[in-house]
């Protein structure tokens, strides 16, 4: 375990987390959050968990941040988006995360160079060991988390599905207003079509 690398990564994690909760701009906060997660991943690597460090970068800093960024982009659609785009290209926006990311990159290079030279002193728990434990005593947990992920998939799909019913209602009301025959008698329950329209 490299103490200096641990403390540098820890200080960067704390600083970026403070910056995350004090930013006003969501995209800037997301950049700092990504840096914070990557520094925590370096802490994991330093604690002898390289597999978890890789998972942290892939899942947290990769997919979860991308999900947040998609939602932020979907929420600022319209005229304000171009203004925000211009703001994103200013130096003040990305200079802080870039400096912190450069520090972390140097640290990763230092750790890798050192790992080639000598084995780390701490006991490194290999992915094989983690896998044996995960599919041994914790098999029930794996099944439960698969159920949870399935539920999250269905739930997110259901919650994200807001366009279709509204469009269908508009369609039905327009047809009713023009007096044209709808041509189909299956109407969603709860739509505002009068009962005698068909």
């Amino acid at each position, binding site marked *: 375990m490299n103490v200096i690398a641990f403390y540098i990564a820890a200080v960067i994690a704390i600083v970026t987390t403070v910056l995350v909760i004090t930013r006003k701009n969501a995209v800037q906060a997301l950049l700092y959050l990504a840096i914070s997660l990557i520094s925590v991943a370096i802490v994991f690597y330093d604690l*002898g968990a390289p597999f978890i460090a890789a998972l942290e970068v892939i899942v*947290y800093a990769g997919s*979860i941040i991308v999900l*947040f960024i998609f*939602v932020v982009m979907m929420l600022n659609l319209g005229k304000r988006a171009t203004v925000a785009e211009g703001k994103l290209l200013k130096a003040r926006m990305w200079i802080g995360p870039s400096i912190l990311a450069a520090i972390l990159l140097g640290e990763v290079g230092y750790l890798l160079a050192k790992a080639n030279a000598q084995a780390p002193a701490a006991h490194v728990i290999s992915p094989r060991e983690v896998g044996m434990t995960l599919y041994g005593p914790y098999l029930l947990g794996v099944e439960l988390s698969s159920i949870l992920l399935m539920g*999250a998939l269905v739930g997110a799909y259901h919650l994200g599905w807001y366009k279709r019913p509204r469009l269908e209602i508009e369609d039905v009301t327009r047809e009713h207003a023009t007096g044209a025959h709808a041509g189909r008698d299956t109407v969603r329950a709860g739509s505002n079509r009068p009962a005698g329209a068909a």
Partner: protein
Amino acid sequence: MLAGILFALGVIGLLVRRNLVFVLMSIEIMLNAAGLAFITAGARWGQADGQVMFIFILAMAASEVSVGLALVLQLYHLNQSLDADRASAMRG
């Protein structure tokens, strides 16, 4: 120690901010801090159980954030705002 500080920052962020996206980010910070505590404990005793728990936390965080962000989108389309105070009135 680091995990405690990060968790405290997450709680502060959750309490202070009113933007729902920031609230979700604070929840992510707190889950990450809890995972860090697990990893530290696992490294301290040299067991793989801490990392297994972190994998579970990871799966839980991923599912939670997907459902949470879908809810945020629904709320935004409902009242054109991300303020958590404006969403306090739930009329069925």
